[in-house]
């Protein structure tokens, strides 16, 4: 599904990502963990075209997407959420998600139809699956942080992606919210057969849903494998998990 091959990114003299490679199979849930500044967000930005790699390649379903524009990569079936909550604050929840549907269905060039009634049922169904149906008419920017994260997920899902990249989907959430959100994400990924790549700082969350884990440290992928293997890896224990215990 997604192949990352020997990816490098330098900012000036600073190597943010150096020599990261991994393969992600279809339908697998993978977590990228690592301390702050390890390069997790940079890695995401390289995959989704927000940054151009200094070297290396990114393949999606065998197709080279290195250096393509974000909107083009999105159209190839990659959805993502951002670490900093990233929604359309002055639109209603319905409009936010509907906009993504409109864009996905190629309606963006349609300047003659009225947009308000288009894909209403589908938008509402998607909102319902996120538990947002009651808030459809609220302004997105006025809702709670947890709701906004859900909206962001809704926007990402509206483009019907094959692979979803979530950057810290539970950042800033309470324990309860985190639990609910993770349950939601796991359910949706299962229902849609999504390939999921996410970053997360909460280890309990990571080990509860990830099938594979990659550990990023100072721009390098120091370990990658199933949770047991990663947990047992001495290098990981030393540089990362060890700091906590």
């Amino acid at each position, binding site marked *: 599904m997604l192949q990352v091959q020997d990816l490098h990114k330098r900012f000036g003299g600073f190597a943010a990502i150096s020599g990261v490679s991994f393969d992600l199979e279809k339908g697998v849930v993978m977590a990228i963990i690592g301390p702050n500044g390890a390069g997790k967000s940079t890695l995401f930005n390289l995959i989704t075209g927000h940054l151009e790699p200094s070297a290396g390649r990114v393949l999606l379903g065998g197709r080279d997407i290195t250096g393509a524009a974000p909107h083009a990569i999105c159209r190839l079936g990659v959805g993502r959420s951002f670490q900093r909550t990233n929604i359309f*604050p002055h639109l209603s929840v319905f409009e936010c998600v509907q906009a993504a549907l409109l864009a996905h269905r190629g309606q963006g060039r349609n300047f003659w139809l009225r947009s308000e009634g288009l894909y209403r049922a589908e938008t509402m169904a998607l909102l319902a699956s996120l538990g947002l149906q009651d808030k459809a008419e609220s302004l997105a920017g006025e809702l709670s942080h947890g709701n906004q994260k859900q909206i962001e997920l809704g926007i990402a899902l509206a483009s019907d992606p094959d692979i979803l990249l979530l950057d810290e989907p539970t950042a800033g959430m309470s324990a309860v919210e985190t639990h609910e959100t993770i349950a939601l994400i796991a359910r949706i990924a299962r229902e849609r057969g999504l390939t999921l790549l996410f970053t997360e700082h909460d280890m309990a969350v990571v080990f509860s849903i990830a099938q594979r884990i990659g550990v990023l440290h100072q721009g390098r992928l120091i370990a990658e494998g199933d949770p047991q293997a990663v947990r047992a890896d001495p290098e990981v224990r030393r540089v990362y998990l060890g700091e906590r215990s």
Partner: protein
Amino acid sequence: MSRRIPWVLVVALVAMWVPWLGSRFYTFLATDIAILALFALSLNLLLGYTGLVSFGHAAYFGIGAYTSAILMKTHGVPFALSFPAAGVVAALFALVFGFFCVRLTKIYFAMLTLAFAQIVWAICFKWNDVTGGEQGLPNVPYPELGWMAAIPGLGQMRAGDHFYLLVLALVAVAVAALRRIVASPYGRMLTVIRENPERAEFIGINVRLYQLSAFTAAGFFAGLAGALFGIFNRGVFPDFAYWTKSAEVLIMTILGGMGHFWGPAVGAMVLTLLNQQITSYTEYWPLILGTILIVLLFGFRGGIVGALAGLGRRLRRR
């Protein structure tokens, strides 16, 4: 869902009766307002809907005015052709200039739009052979409107009244088109770009392409407004494209409220009427305008329509 009221039609039907008030002056004012309303509404496609602060929108107004004036006066082209041509030429310039502008953001975008507008102004100001230079092109002919006299009820009217009805009809069509555009899926994409370009890019929107198309469309409608204004003003002058003109239309848009579709039109009307009233008392209109603007910037961010809408909401809650 409540039934939609076709507001453009309603407004046009009301405004249609102005000539029957019998005053040449009212018709004159109403024509002025209708044209400037279209100009301000075209700017708001960028400012309010796409989130692009253009400080050089007068360029396309000026290009439209000169295109139509040169075609009509120098080449004797009939209005029916010169009017759409003005929009198309303005849109072409907007496409070329916009191509460079949308690659920049924020203050640099504003500066480059301003720079292009000044280039247009400088060309109009200096290219004597074509644009008449500093003197402009006076005596742009009126379109041939004799046919209107044949319509029952319009036979007794002055030429100015006929022209007003023509302007009103054309502006109404243009505004209806603008309204359709902002309510369409395309319009939604523009709003999404205004709200958050980064996120918009990742629902699969080519942000720059959409910004460029909005810039071009806004240029088109500004060009149409300019063509009408040149005829109304009985001449076109380099001032049409000067940066102070760009500031003026920005003020109209902000005054009316850029958060609402009709805001800029209300702003154009209020500013024109105010100007009319105040200039009959004092020559210091800019002083008053500047003061209004400062009050607006500090006190009423949503403009007139924004303030009214807020008031309406509060009353309904009681």
